[in-house]
């Protein structure tokens, strides 16, 4: 066992540090916010060094690096340390680009991949519908080919980032007579057109991260389809991960634990710092057990992925594990906050004033429930673990409808 990355990789780390030292922040000026142009230039320079757009072929503006789990991890560590921007975050770079590279036509790649990876255009994902959540393939939004255009009608929900998206990649039922999974196509749609009605959803936290999108006679060209008609379900399952971020989820859990530890040290109850309360110490140490376990599981996955070996059942547990930890941390946070737990986190009123850090924990108390649901509910995660991990049979209802 060796938890260091080894000499070759530490040399790589030095090289990355040197690059970052010379290039970020732009002009070495820490006191001002970098301009958009400077950020773009930085990303282009980092790509030229092979640090960004690693999975993107050179012809589409990428650096076309061979997958290397550990270089990926080092880059994330060093860029984070330097507070330097990596590839533009978002569903476009994470999901659409890999899908296009695997399944798209050459012209589609040329048109969409470079601007998406540069952060010039933003995407949203039109998958979930009001009646189609866990049973996504039952979706009803319809697309009809009229002349050279698809005409689309329906409703999508939980659409993150729809308010500032330029395009949507969307699952649409185009073959109403085909069996459920075979009747869906994967269409690309311009968001800036009449008939596209985006309405933010107000969450229980008071904020709005998601939207409803109503599509009324929305149009898109006939060839803005990825894969063939009726292949949309398969296309949407393309989850090519060039370099898996094996330790990403665990790193978030660790950061959250550091936060709750700080909260326990900085809050008091009955005149005593919470960190001195034996029951609080017990809960913190119990949570730390989960957090460390999650962290080491990440290292184990990284080791296996780097060798192209299957990490096994542990890989299916990351999300549920994160969710469970997030619940425990959030519940403890509310106990540490005491009376501040009475307050509306969105309030800016001075009455009942409390530090803004505490306010974010109140939001987190609710947000942890959103995390449990987004991207596949905890119960769906349990199905996956049971079925693919423990070899239990698929749900009989799911079998019938498939």
């Amino acid at each position, binding site marked *: *066992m*060796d*938890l*260091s*990355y*080894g000499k070759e*990789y530490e040399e790589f780390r030095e090289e990355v540090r040197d690059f970052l030292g010379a290039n970020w922040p732009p002009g070495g000026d820490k006191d001002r916010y970098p301009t958009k142009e400077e950020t773009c230039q930085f990303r282009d320079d980092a790509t030229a060094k092979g640090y960004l757009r690693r999975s993107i072929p050179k012809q589409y503006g990428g650096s076309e690096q061979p997958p290397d789990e*550990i270089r990926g*991890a080092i880059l994330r560590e060093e860029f984070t340390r330097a507070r330097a921007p990596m590839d533009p975050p978002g569903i476009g770079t994470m999901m659409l680009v890999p899908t296009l590279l695997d399944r798209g036509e050459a012209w589609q790649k040329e048109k969409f991949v470079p601007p998406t990876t540069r952060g010039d255009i933003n995407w949203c994902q039109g998958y979930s519908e009001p009646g189609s959540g866990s049973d996504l393939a039952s979706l009803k939004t319809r697309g009809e080919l009229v002349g050279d255009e698809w005409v689309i009608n329906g409703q999508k929900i939980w659409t993150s980032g729809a308010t500032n998206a330029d395009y949507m990649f969307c699952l649409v039922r185009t073959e109403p007579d085909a069996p459920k999974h075979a009747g869906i196509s994967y269409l690309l749609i311009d968001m800036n057109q009449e008939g596209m009605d985006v309405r933010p959803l107000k969450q229980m936290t008071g904020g709005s991260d998601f939207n409803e999108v109503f599509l009324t006679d929305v149009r898109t060209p006939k060839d803005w389809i990825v894969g063939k008609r009726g292949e949309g379900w398969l296309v949407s399952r393309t989850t090519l991960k060039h370099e898996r971020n094996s330790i990403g989820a665990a790193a978030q859990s660790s950061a959250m634990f550091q936060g709750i*530890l700080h909260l*326990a*040290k900085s809050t008091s109850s009955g005149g005593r710092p919470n*960190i001195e309360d*034996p029951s609080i*110490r*017990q809960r*913190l*140490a*119990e949570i*730390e*057990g*989960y957090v*460390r*376990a*999650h*962290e*080491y*599981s990440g*290292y*184990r996955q*990284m*080791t*296996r992925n*780097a060798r192209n070996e299957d990490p096994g*059942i*542990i890989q299916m*547990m990351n999300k*549920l*594990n994160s969710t*469970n930890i997030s619940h425990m941390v959030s519940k403890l946070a509310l106990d540490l906050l005491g009376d501040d737990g009475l307050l509306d986190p969105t309030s800016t009123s001075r009455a009942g004033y409390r530090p803004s850090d505490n306010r974010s924990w109140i939001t987190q108390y609710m947000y942890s429930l959103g995390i449990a649901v987004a991207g596949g509910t905890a*119960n769906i*995660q*349990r*199905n996956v*673990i*049971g*079925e693919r*991990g*423990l*070899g*239990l*049979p698929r*749900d*009989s209802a799911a079998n019938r409808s498939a």
Partner: protein
Amino acid sequence: MNFDISEEQELLQDTIRQFMANECPTTHLREVFESETGFDATLWKGMAELGLVGLHLDDEYGGAGLEIIDLALVAESLGYGGAPGPFLGHVLAGLAIQLAGSDAQKQTWLPSLATGDAIGTVALGEVGGGWQPEEWTLAAGSTLSGVKLNVPYASIAEVIVVGVEGGGLVLVEKGASGVEIQPIEGVDRARRIDAVTFESTPCEALPEGAAQSGRVRDAALVLLAADAFGSGSRLVDMSVAYAKTREQFGVTIEHFQAVKHQLANMAVELEPSRGLFWYAAHAFDHVQDESQRAAALAKAHISDRVMQIARDSVEAHGGIGFTWECDVQLWFKRSMFNRAFLGTPSVHRERAAQMGGW
């Protein structure tokens, strides 16, 4: 970055699993469990011939010169197999003598402990808890007096390493005067424990005892965590296997989502914790300043999680799970031992809190 076990280590674990399946199927485990002594000399000899009982002792004394990570992987596999007998106390006694003993003491004891011809054990616990070195109260000079509790297999041990006042360690040989050994009716009949009373008993100090007793405790915590992990794996496997055979409403109960989710939850509570005992063992061997805390967290977390998994396993088996005849009880009780021995999870969580500077 290599956070994984080696092919040799995997092979070692496979060998032990195979050995346990052949030499100690649950029918046989039950016989030992219900026997007078809880000791099966043939099984012990087999384990010794595989080299399991002296794996961590130096080559020059007939050991394999391996590390605590290797010993922990053995403990995991033995936990999975439900191995009955004195393994835990024995390997800790060998470790204590190797870490803290004089050359003469090592020369005297390690060769026969390495081959398993002599069985050793450790006497750490005292009345009212008192498992940690700083809590030991027995005064020892050239003789020793007082009571140690929960000593594994004291009655068949050739040598007992006893924790004494000031965190020191002393050796007491079999047959020494003033030793009285009384069996305690422990819940895990696969790992027997005794109460040992010393009355002006001749003893011999391990010169580095006070400096090394904490290390011995940490190794013990790692081995208990590893055994607990192996036990947890067995309980999950048993519960999954049962769900695949038990029929209700005309289908095997694995088809019911409630059952599937219960089993998935058990697996999620268990599987990520594998790295906790791996890391605690690795830290013991190579990152000593993190070793104490890592061992405390691993033992607290895994023994606690697996106890709950054992409870869930009974539930997953329904009525049969509550019976003496169902094998779940064997690992349920093993889990109770792993949880309580050397201090409950709350003891080690508080230790972790202190060591973390909280």
